[in-house]
């Protein structure tokens, strides 16, 4: 068997200024056969990107390849000169970076950038390259393949840009493509499309690939072999099915376990029951910007008539794709983003829209834990000072008293007391997020708003944080609002879940029933897009999706349901004009959809379009009209 890539005993060191050389990659050996896809798996700092870049003969500033051999398509990369490397990169091996949004030059049209590798290497004429590019666009399932090249980066979505970047990597017909976390920054609904496009293009062209990721479910879909890395060393390598199904290394086992967090069982299921005392209640909250309309409400709405409630001691999950208003909701509840209309009730008292007009007691009882652990702690303050400030501010504790209380809080989040004298820069991401949590707890809150707190963490660390959250809830009886785009996390920590789409709550349901029962079409799309950790899932999901799905529309509806253009049970004439009715199901769940709840129950596992007859919903237009315009009926 010929190996397209063969790395043996690779050593890479990093050096900070005149400091000693620190090994980043130690004794790594791996082989990739022609036409195969190898996944490099590991948490941040495991050296996976460093290894991937070394295949292109590149070491990041401050790093150097200090030993070993890298054979790529018959070239010994470590001995190549700068000139040879230039001819080699982009031609024999190309690279797809993580964040396509920042990888394109905003001042040039996309087509110019996509054919640039071919132009730089003089491998084909402009006309040939453009022809090739359009073929690739078609293969990657991009809309309007003939004309999309004339557009500019800001006009396209993240998923489209990621596919364009793949086209750029493939335009020179390279033998090898290195993908560096290409779907990490994407929403799940987009990720599945990008993955499917990547896979079919690579298979058609017999390209050898290296795929860097930390997401094991993605690995299961796209790779043949996998290498698990930790601290720059190989922990385990072998076929993907082996590694995921039967991991032998302890660390791999831990990783696999972190991806299979058991669903939450602690809280009894029917929490939507109104008899339980609610901590927070939102009704008809509108947040927006732009001119005011006749009713004095903003024209452009980020949140549109959002109504939610959080029962005491429970966790409400908020899910939705980027831009759906999740973070604005957190800012609104915490008083950083005043609302234009609606009412927010906290522990029975109405909250003022502006933080300055809330009482200290209200602010104390409602704490926010923000998304990015790296930015939420003041880098100039020691950890102790950050926590003690909250203790002094809200509880009047000073000196030794505050110090002891801060130490007690560190115990609570399972961190050593020594951290109190450290600066945030000296802590790891997971530690910072725990500190962040401890700081919120310092105020003895009733409700903690968690805005994507696990998004930037490695799976093992994230799983530990989620566990800690649940544990503290049991001990202290805190309520949480848990904002995320990670459905696994929702199932692990939430009792209820609210699904946001385009600033509207399209569904409010119990989190354990996400895979069963009636759901909003968007919820079903979301749930069916979360990769499962088994081979063949992607094929199944894509087949199911293509079967029952009409083409997405490019135009936004003028009124009615915001999900209309992407909906698989849409009824033109009804859904895009009339106000959306909210159906209340027997269990207390709420779904905002025209289609009757009975018809929204998934048909088997595939999540495709159900064959139920659509019955009209009371409160909407006449039954005849609905039935008449509905393509799904009869």
């Amino acid at each position, binding site marked *: 068997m010929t190996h397209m890539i063969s790395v043996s005993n690779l050593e890479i060191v990093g050096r900070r200024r005149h400091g000693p050389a620190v090994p980043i990659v130690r004794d790594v050996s791996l082989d990739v056969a022609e036409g195969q896809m190898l996944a490099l798996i590991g948490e941040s700092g495991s050296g996976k990107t460093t290894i991937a870049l070394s295949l292109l003969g590149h070491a990041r500033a401050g790093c150097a390849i200090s030993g070993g051999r890298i054979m790529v398509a018959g070239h010994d990369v470590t001995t190549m000169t700068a000139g040879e490397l230039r001819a080699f990169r982009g031609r024999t091996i190309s690279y797809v970076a993580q964040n396509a949004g920042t990888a394109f030059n905003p001042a040039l049209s996309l087509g110019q950038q996509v054919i640039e590798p071919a132009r730089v290497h003089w491998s084909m004429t402009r006309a040939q390259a453009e022809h090739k590019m359009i073929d690739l666009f078609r293969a990657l399932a991009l809309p309007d393949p003939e004309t999309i090249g004339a557009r500019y980066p800001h006009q396209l979505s993240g998923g489209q840009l990621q596919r364009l970047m793949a086209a750029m990597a493939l335009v020179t017909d390279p033998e090898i493509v290195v993908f560096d976390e290409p779907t990490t920054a994407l929403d799940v609904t987009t990720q599945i499309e990008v993955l499917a496009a990547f896979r079919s293009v690579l298979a058609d062209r017999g390209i050898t690939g290296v795929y860097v990721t930390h997401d094991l479910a993605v690995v299961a879909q796209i790779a043949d072999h996998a290498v698990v890395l930790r601290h720059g060393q190989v922990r385990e390598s072998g076929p993907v099915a082996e590694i995921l199904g039967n991991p032998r290394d302890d660390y791999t086992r831990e990783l696999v376990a972190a991806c299979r967090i058991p669903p939450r069982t602690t809280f009894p299921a029917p929490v939507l029951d109104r008899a339980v005392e609610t901590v927070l209640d939102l009704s008809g909250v509108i947040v927006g910007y732009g001119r005011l309309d006749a009713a004095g409400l903003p024209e452009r709405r980020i949140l549109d008539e959002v109504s939610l409630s959080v029962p005491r001691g429970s966790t409400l999950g908020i899910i939705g794709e980027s831009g759906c208003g999740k973070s604005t909701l957190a800012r609104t509840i915490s*008083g*950083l983003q005043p609302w234009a209309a609606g009412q927010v009730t906290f522990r029975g008292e109405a909250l003022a829209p502006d*933080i300055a007009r809330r009482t200290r007691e209200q*602010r104390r009882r409602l704490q926010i834990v*923000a998304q990015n652990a790296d*930015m939420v702690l*003041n880098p*100039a*303050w020691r950890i102790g000072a950050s926590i003690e400030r909250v203790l002094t501010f809200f509880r009047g504790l000073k000196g030794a008293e505050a110090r002891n209380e801060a130490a007690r809080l560190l115990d609570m989040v399972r961190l050593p007391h020594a951290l109190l004298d450290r600066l945030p820069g000296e802590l790891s991401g997971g530690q910072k997020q725990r500190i962040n949590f401890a700081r919120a707890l310092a105020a003895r809150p009733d409700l903690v708003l968690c805005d994507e707190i696990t998004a930037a963490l490695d799976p093992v660390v994230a799983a530990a944080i989620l566990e800690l959250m649940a544990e503290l809830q049991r001990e202290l009886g805190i309520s949480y609002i848990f904002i995320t785009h990670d459905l696994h996390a929702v199932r692990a920590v939430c009792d209820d879940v609210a699904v946001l789409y385009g600033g509207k709550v399209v569904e409010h349901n119990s989190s354990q029933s996400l895979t069963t029962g009636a759901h909003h079409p968007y919820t079903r799309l979301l749930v069916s897009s979360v990769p499962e950790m088994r081979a063949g899932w992607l094929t199944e999901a894509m087949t199911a999706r293509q079967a029952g799905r009409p083409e997405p529309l490019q135009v936004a509806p003028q009124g009615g349901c915001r999900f209309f253009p992407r909906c698989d049970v849409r009824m033109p004439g009804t859904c895009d004009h009339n106000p959306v009715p909210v159906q209340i199901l027997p269990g207390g769940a709420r779904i905002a959809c025209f289609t009757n709840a009975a018809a929204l129950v998934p048909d088997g596992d595939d999540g495709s379009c159900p064959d139920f007859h659509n019955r009209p919903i009371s409160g909407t237009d006449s039954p005849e009209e609905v039935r008449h315009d509905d393509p799904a009926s009869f």
Partner: protein
Amino acid sequence: MKVRVSLPSATQRVGMLFGFWLVLAMFGPLLAPYAPGQIIDTQVFAPISHQHWLGTDYLGRDLGSRLLYAVRYTVLICTLSTAFSCGCGILLGVATTATPAWVEQVAGRLMDGILSIPSLLCALLVIAAFGDSLMALVLTMGVIYTPGAYRTSRALALRIARMDYITVAMARGEGRLFIIWREILPNMRGPLLADVGLRFIYAVLLLSNLSFLGLGVQPPLVDLGSLVRENVLGLVYGAVAVVLPTIVIAVLTVGINLVLDATAGRRS
């Protein structure tokens, strides 16, 4: 056990260099063997000798003594004007990130106005109008360099004000003053230090320019720029008296610049 010799940190080195020049400005004249105005030799533009370590100037005065006094005035005037410009600029720059928008509108346009006038021209005009007392010099130079400090500190503060820890402090309900002094300012220290140093260098150059044109420090007082001007005739004789003050100006400005560059390199 290995003995570790720790070099002073970048910030300490900046402090040490500034400290050196300040000490020289305060106490240097005590070392001067002669009074600055005293004519002690008949030979003008005398070369270096054991009597006059740095030679004599165009009137036969001891250059070493005059140089020590010149350093005093240059450094002190520039320190005072830098303190004025950076004090006003930073205060205003940081404060406007937390005040209503119209305050920034007014302050910002005022600063833009000052910034649009060439600094040397502005100084010439003000001194022509208000005379050339030391106080006028300090204030003029202070005002001229305020917009720069304002712009830099405002840009820095705006970046920090968008950080999540400021959001957290605001959600806690902290007051504006607390946020400015405790949350924002400590994080601006490094870049601000570099900026203050840079303004000091600008001030040295402007003062030297003014004095060279005869509008800066007036006789009998003396600063580095006026030393160059009054001895410029010595250029044809290759006199020490004109070369040395220029070298001192260069050492003062370039030295501080180099140390500051080292701190900037450290951070990135």
